[in-house]
C-alpha cells in the first residue's frame, strides 16, 4: 500500500518522531525546572494583621457563604478592659456598658467577668462573619488583640483567593502550610 508515497510517509514520520521527542524532552526540562523551583509543602492564604485595614471585604468576597476569615483574639495582647472598643461601639460622650452599645453585628463576642476591673472577651467563631468591626475598634483605641485571620478549617485554599483580589491593602499573602497563621506578637514577654 502507498508504495509511491513511501518516501513522503517516512519523512513525515521522521519529523513527527523528532517533534515528539522534542516535546518529551521539553516536558522533562519543565519537570527539572519545577523540581528545582518547587516547594514540598503547600502554601495557604493568610492575612498579615499589621497590613489589614479592616475594610470589611473579608465578610463579603469569600467564595464561601460564610467567610473563611474570622476574628482571632490573642489574649496575651489583650488589656482585659472594662470598656472594650472591640466590644462596645465608640461613644466618646456617653461611654457605658449598655447592651445597645455592642458593636458586633452578630453578637459573636462573649464578655465574661474575670476579676475587678477585668473582663475576658471570647469570639464565638460559629457566629463571627469576619467583618472586622471589632478589629477596627480594638486597633484604633486598644491594644489590637483582635485581628482577622483566615481559618484553615474553613478555607478552600483557592488558587486565586477572591478576598485577596479584593483586598485594598494587599494584606493577603501565601504562607507555608506548616505555619499557617500570622498571629500578633506580644512585646512584654
Amino acid at each position: 500500500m502507498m508504495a509511491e508515497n513511501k518516501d513522503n510517509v517516512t519523512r513525515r514520520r521522521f519529523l513527527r518522531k523528532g517533534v515528539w521527542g522534542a516535546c518529551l524532552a521539553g516536558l522533562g526540562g519543565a519537570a527539572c525546572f519545577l523540581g528545582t523551583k518547587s516547594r514540598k509543602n503547600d502554601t495557604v492564604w493568610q492575612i498579615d494583621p499589621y497590613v489589614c485595614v479592616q475594610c470589611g471585604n473579608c465578610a463579603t468576597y469569600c467564595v464561601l457563604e460564610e467567610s473563611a476569615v474570622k476574628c482571632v483574639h490573642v489574649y496575651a495582647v489583650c488589656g482585659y478592659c472594662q470598656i472594650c472598643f472591640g466590644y462596645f461601639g465608640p461613644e466618646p460622650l456617653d461611654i457605658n456598658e449598655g447592651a445597645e452599645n455592642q458593636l458586633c453585628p452578630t453578637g459573636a463576642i462573649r464578655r465574661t467577668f474575670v476579676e475587678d476591673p477585668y473582663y475576658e472577651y471570647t469570639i464565638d467563631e460559629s457566629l463571627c462573619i469576619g467583618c472586622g468591626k471589632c478589629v477596627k475598634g480594638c486597633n484604633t483605641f486598644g491594644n489590637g488583640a483582635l485581628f482577622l485571620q483566615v481559618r484553615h478549617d474553613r478555607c478552600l485554599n483557592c488558587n486565586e483567593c477572591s478576598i485577596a483580589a479584593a483586598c485594598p491593602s494587599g494584606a493577603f499573602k501565601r504562607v507555608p502550610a506548616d505555619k499557617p497563621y500570622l498571629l500578633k506578637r506580644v512585646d512584654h514577654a
Partner: protein
Amino acid sequence: MIRFGHIIISIAFFLIVCGAASGVERFPPPDFESGYELPSPTTPHPRRNIYEYIDAVVLLAALGLASYLGLKKRSRRAIFVLMVFSLIYFGFWRKGCVCPIGAIQNLTLSLFDREYAVPIVVAVFFLLPLVFTLFFGRTFCAAVCPFGAVQDLVLLRPVAVPNWLESGLRLFAYAYLGVAILLAATGSAFIICRYDPFISFFRLSGSLNIFILGACFLLVGVFIGRPYCRFVCPYGVILRQLSRLSKWHVGITPDDCIKCRLCEDSCPFGAIRVPTAEWPARDYDKSKKLLALLILLLPILILACAWAVSTGGDLMSRTHATVRLADRINLEESGKVKETTDASAAFRATGKEVKELYAEASNIQAEIKTGSWLLGGFLGLVIAIKLIGHSVRRTRTDYEADRAACLACGRCFEYCPRERVRLKETKQTVGDGE
C-alpha cells in the same frame, strides 16, 4: 468550640511566637490575682500535605486507567464510570482545586517571579496529563477532568457545529490562554480561576455571576458537546498540540476501516474526519497559489494582530492592583476626586512615596504593553497557521479521529461494525467478504 488538642498545639506555638516583640500596648495586660490563666487562640490546621499527595496519586491512577480503558479495553461504559468518579472526586470532593487548567498560571508566575515557588503537587497536576497525552492522546479530557465530565453528562441532544465555526470559535481558547499567561506572568490576576465557570457549581457556593455563567455553559452543553473544552479551555489548547503527536491514540475501529460510514455522525465533538479523494488538478493549483499568498501574508498578519492587541494593553494592565491604585492616587492628587477609597487610604497610611508607586505602576504597564505585543503576535501566528491548515488538504483513505480534536470519550466505538466483530457480537463477516 475550643478543642483540647488545638489548645495544646497553640500553646506550644505561642511559646515560640512570644519570643519576638512588636505591637501597640495602650493598656498593659493585667496581672491577675484570682489565678486566671490566659487562654490561647485556636489555630485549626489546613488540610495535611499527605492528602495533596493522595490527590496526585489518584490523578496518576485515573489517567492510567482512562488510557487503558480507551485504548485497550475500548469500553465507553467503563470510561463513563471513571468520568463520573472523577467528577465526584476532583469536582465535588476536592472542589475543583488543584486543577491542571489553573496550574498553567502558577507555572507561568513561577517562571517570571523569582520568589514564587509552585507546590510540587501543582507541578505534578500540570505535567502528568501532558505526559499522558503525549503517549495516549487526550484521555485526560475523556475521563479525568471534572470540567469535561460535568459537560459530558449534560450532553443529551448533540448538534453538529460547522467546521469553519468550530475553528473560528476555537481562536477564543488560544486568546484566553495567551491573556491568562500574560496576566499571570505580570502577577496581575489569575483569570482562569476567576472566571472558572463550574467551580461554584462544584462548591455549591460562590459568586452568583459565575454560577450563572456555569449554568449557561451547561445549558449550551446540552446541544453543543462540551463547549468549554472545545472553545474556551486553555489547557485543552496545549493538549491538542501534544495529542497530534501522541504515540498511540484511540481509533474508531479496532482494526481496519471498512468505510461503512456508520460512525460518521457518532461524534458530538466533530472530531471524525471523513475520507477525502485526491484533489482535482485545478483545485490543487488554486490552493497552491492560496498557500503561497498566505505564507507571504504571514508576517503581515502577525504584525497587524500584534498592533491590534497592543492597543488593548492599557486595558489589560488595569487588572493589576498596583496600576489601579496608581490611577486612583493620581486622580486624588490632581484633585479630580475628593473622596478616598479603601485602597488609596491604605496606601497613604503606609507612608510610601507617591512617586515610588507611579514608577512601579508604569513599570508594570510597560511590561504588559510588551506582553500584549507578543500576545498579538502569537494570535496572528495562530490565525495564519489555521488559514494555512485550511488551504492544505490531506488525502485520507479511512474514517479517522482527528487527533487534536478527539477527546477519547469512546462514543464512536459502538458504531463500528468491526468493533462488534471484535466483541464477538456478530459473526466474522462484516467487512471480510469484500
